[in-house]
């Protein structure tokens, strides 16, 4: 990517946001923004980048959009012979770049949309990925992804666009994008690394725009600390390496220290939230030289905080693993107790995998083997199944 292309990609959401705020028509604003970006890509390498590239783009895009509105109105007038007032305001209104980007993000993550549509629209409108790129990352045909995006635009047509009081919905969508990319960052799905990169880039953007939002900082830290483990979490053949067995010398030091600094800063300055606690847990792992040297008691405490902020079965599961490490496998198994009657966990392979792991630690090889086998049967992930089958074989 050239310098101009990079610059344009960074500016695109601001320009689109400015146009949407002003003209309240997402599709027309997107077309006009695309045209302005195209014009910039043609002119800037020859004429040089203007002093205020964002203002230049907003001006050009506004002109394209008002031209389009005028010609549409002209044809409507011809058809209906009724005068229609032209609503386009002046094109040189100053750019509220920060608010515009946040508003655009909030709009892409509108509660009226399904998660799949929120993700697609965010990557398209703010991430600046092409529909084909997004489709490839999610392993669906381009036509399917195009449908999701166009459906999303239809659904938010006419919605009021403002910067919301809290960015929870936006952060959640960025979290989903990151997870989608992170769980697939090896083997045949290597190209999904793009999603991780986009999620981190957008989380950085939100954190930069809202530096005092503790959860925005927490999410960015969580992403950095998790992504730092990527080189160690799979082998060359795509098979999974559990956290305890990872070669920690492969962890990305630069990402780790950036994540750690963010966690330390936000935990002392902001009100605590879910992403911050998850980042703090990732930070405890990052600071440990090995699984055995990990401060498991602290992790148990953090999962306790997490389950009071957001009680759910997955947190209970992770808490049980930490309890098993801190106080021994029998205590861990006892902590799994509340989940055995939980309807949400029926058929969930992770419950069986955790129980198997704790039973193995406790020396109950026969029972552990049966649980690993059940987990392997229930997972729908090929690498997880291979890993769990390996555990069955090891105990055989």
């Amino acid at each position, binding site marked *: 990517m050239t310098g101009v292309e990079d610059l344009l990609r960074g500016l695109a959401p601001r320009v689109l946001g400015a146009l949407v705020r002003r003209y309240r028509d997402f599709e027309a604003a997107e077309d006009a923004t695309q045209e302005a970006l195209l014009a910039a890509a043609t002119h800037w390498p020859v004429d040089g980048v203007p002093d205020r590239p964002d203002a230049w783009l907003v001006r050009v895009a506004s002109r394209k959009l008002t031209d389009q509105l005028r010609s549409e109105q002209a044809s409507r007038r011809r058809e209906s012979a009724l005068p229609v007032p032209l609503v386009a305001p002046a094109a040189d209104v100053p750019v509220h770049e920060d608010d515009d980007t946040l508003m655009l993000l909030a709009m892409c993550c509108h509660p009226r949309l399904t998660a799949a549509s929120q993700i697609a629209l965010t990557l398209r409108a703010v991430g600046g990925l092409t529909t084909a790129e997004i489709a490839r990352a999610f*392993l*669906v045909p381009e036509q399917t992804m195009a*449908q999701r995006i166009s459906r999303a635009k239809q659904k938010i047509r006419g919605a009021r666009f403002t910067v919301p009081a809290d960015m929870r919905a936006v952060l959640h969508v960025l979290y989903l994008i990151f997870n989608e990319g992170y*769980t*697939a960052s090896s083997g045949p799905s290597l190209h999904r690394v793009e999603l991780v990169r986009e999620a981190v880039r957008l989380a950085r953007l939100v954190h930069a725009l809202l530096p005092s939002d503790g959860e925005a900082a927490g999410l960015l830290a969580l992403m950095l600390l998790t992504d730092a483990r990527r080189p160690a979490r799979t082998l060359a053949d*795509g098979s999974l390496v*559990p*956290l305890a067995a990872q070669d920690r010398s492969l962890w990305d030091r630069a990402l780790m220290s950036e994540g750690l600094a963010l966690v330390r800063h936000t935990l002392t300055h902001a009100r605590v939230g879910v992403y911050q606690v998850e980042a703090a847990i990732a930070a405890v792992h990052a600071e440990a030289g090995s699984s055995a040297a990990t401060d498991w008691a602290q992790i148990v405490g953090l999962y306790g905080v997490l389950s009071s902020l957001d009680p759910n079965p997955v947190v209970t599961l992770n808490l049980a693993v930490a309890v098993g490490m801190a106080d021994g496998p029998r205590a861990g198994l006892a902590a799994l107790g509340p989940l055995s009657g939980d309807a949400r966990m029926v058929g969930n392979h992770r419950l069986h995998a955790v129980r198997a792991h704790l039973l193995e630690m406790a020396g109950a090889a026969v029972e552990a083997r049966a649980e690993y086998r059940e987990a392997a049967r229930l997972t729908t*992930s090929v690498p997880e199944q291979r890993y769990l089958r390996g555990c069955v074989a090891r105990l055989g």
Partner: protein
Amino acid sequence: MKYLVMIYGNPRNWEHPMFLHDPGFLALPAEEREEVARQAEELRREITESGEFVAGVALADPALTRNVRGRDGVPVTTDGPYVESKEQLAGYFVLDCESPERAASIAARFPDARFAAVEVRPIMDMAGQEM
């Protein structure tokens, strides 16, 4: 998460869409038949527009099946379906849905579920979580 939705049909009246030629469907009053057909059309539109439809095919008559089996290291090819059964795989859809519940509720709305059978199975993912 992606799901394979398999549509089964009666091999005696092989014509797509299968349910339109099912004896159970044909026995319905005209009004109800129209309603079922309209709902089926609506379902197809809904899953296309929502971006859940990934792929789908209609299969040819089971009589055109070629069976291939290895015997003593030599592949043997025979004509016709391997199993003569009342219901044969007629076609499939690949859907990308938010939850297994959503996939099952879509499957239940295919008219074939009422007159023959529809099966939903999760498709394995190449992605995996850290254990």
